[in-house]
């Protein structure tokens, strides 16, 4: 078998210093999460963990049935890149698994050593914060697992648990908060979005002599286009491409100033925000009375 990337020797703690910036208070308030870690953060996290375990069969099952065969170990790009053993999907899930074993399983309570169960404490939390934010939830490991164990599910559960006690990263929380203010991740306000579209119309006329519209908030259009917001900001050729295709196909379309973002950062945080962001797409489609949604990221 051809191995395109050599498997690195393990280097314990080699990625441990790569820590995300903590979330800012102002963003946490906007996305309905605790501003800071409460004194009883451990209680809050364990309470959330119990809730997650009772809501997601995947999480409970995946924490239960891993046999540690190591099939996933050399499949994660973060392990291949850093050599940090805690970036092996199995070891990443173990960070949550050992706490789960300690507090939620008979096996872990009766014979903790065999199941490597561990108390939730400051050290464990630090590992969670470092390594659960070094997973991109790409699910590559799940393809190779004989039981389909999907580390993304475990990562999402861990982030949801941490978020419930006010532990999150700025990159994610700031972006989510921006969506509720502006409708997109980049923070493009409605007037700016319209202005960008008008600019692209003019630009297209000047450079190519084409008279193609970039409709914004056009009620009753056939298609609502949800592009990545960057397409109207930096990757404008893509935006021009959409317009040309719609024009050539003769389809009436529109973008919405309420929802102009195909990427959902709620996925990296918790279910409530994931849903709240996705709901904006449906809300925009209803209010604009479109027939179809074209959605890409």
């Amino acid at each position: 078998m051809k191995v395109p990337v050599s498997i690195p020797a393990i280097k314990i703690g080699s990625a441990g210093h790569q820590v995300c910036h903590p979330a800012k208070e102002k963003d946490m308030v906007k996305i309905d999460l605790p501003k800071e870690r409460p004194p009883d953060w451990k209680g809050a996290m364990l309470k959330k963990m119990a809730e997650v375990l009772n809501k997601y069969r995947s999480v409970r099952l995946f924490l239960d049935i891993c046999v540690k065969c190591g099939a996933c170990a050399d499949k994660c790009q973060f392990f291949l890149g850093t050599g940090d053993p805690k970036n092996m999907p199995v070891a990443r899930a173990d960070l949550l698994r050992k706490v789960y074993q300690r507090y939620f399983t008979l096996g872990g309570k009766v014979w903790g050593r065999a199941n490597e169960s561990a108390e939730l404490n400051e050290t464990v939390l630090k590992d969670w914060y470092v390594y659960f934010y070094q997973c991109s939830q790409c699910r590559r490991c799940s393809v190779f697992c004989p039981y389909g164990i999907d580390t993304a599910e475990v990562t999402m559960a861990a982030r949801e648990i941490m978020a419930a006690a006010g532990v999150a990263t700025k990159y994610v929380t700031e972006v989510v908060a921006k969506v509720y203010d502006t409708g997109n991740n980049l923070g493009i306000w409605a007037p700016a979005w319209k202005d960008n579209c008008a600019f692209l119309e003019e630009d297209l006329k000047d450079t190519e002599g084409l008279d193609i519209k970039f409709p914004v908030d056009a009620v009753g259009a056939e298609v609502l286009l949800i592009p990545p917001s960057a397409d109207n900001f930096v990757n404008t050729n893509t935006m021009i491409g959409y317009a040309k295709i719609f024009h050539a196909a003769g389809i009436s379309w529109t973008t919405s100033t309420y929802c102009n973002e195909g990427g959902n950062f709620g996925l990296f945080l918790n279910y409530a925000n994931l849903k709240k962001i996705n709901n904006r797409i449906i809300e925009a489609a209803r209010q604009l009375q479109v027939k179809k949604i074209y959605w890409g990221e």
Partner: protein
Amino acid sequence: MATKFLFIYLPYISVGIFILGVLYQFWRWARTPVPLRIVITPAPKTRKGLALRLIGDVLLFPSLFKADKLLWAGGFLFHVFLWLVILRHLRYFLYPVPGWVEAIQTAGLYAGYLIPIPLAFLLARRLIFERTLYISILGDFFALFLLLAISLSGILLQVFFRTYIVDVKALILGLIYFQPAISDYHWLFTLHFVLIMVLLIYFPFGKLMHSGGLFFSSTRNQRANFEERFVNPWDFSVSYNVQNLFPPEKYRETLKGMREGKKE
């Protein structure tokens, strides 16, 4: 007294723990809802296709084959040998012995002789590679050593310390029909028997539950029928707080204003 405990009480206790424990784990998984469709694509669209994929997963471990050929070979051979050995042992549990159990006796015998090889390989693999050693926990070694001890004691019983199997069959049938009949057994048979009881007790509470778990695994037991609506049983509605500057109401007003020709 010790004999009575080991051959009468212990079997009932361990089989009881095994059955109740496995049912308990299945119940824990079954009662937990599945909120999202997280199937690993490409996945079958039909129920028949799904059944075929699951059966294929159980019998052939295709994901593991993609991941690591050597590990696949070790794991696959171990499981095939294990099943042959278990089926061969049915001759102690059934009276009269069905034809198919008789038919696999030879295969089961050789599987029994060979099973330490994949077990030793799986153990060596854990110890040799840095990364597998890192992820291995006591429970992994416990299960491997237990299985190795059971298989080696079984081989010794077959080859050197041959047990009077009429007594063994009387013991097991006696237990099954709640009329225990115990006699004197060689210490090696006692060891073999007790280790299996230990395995049964340990089974539901550790990683060995992977055997039934596959059928509950959302990534493998769902279909790719994305056209059908998937309803989250515990879904809730979300609301905007006062600090969110662009809630749905504001958009409604903006659109209304545009319809009435007002400038925003």
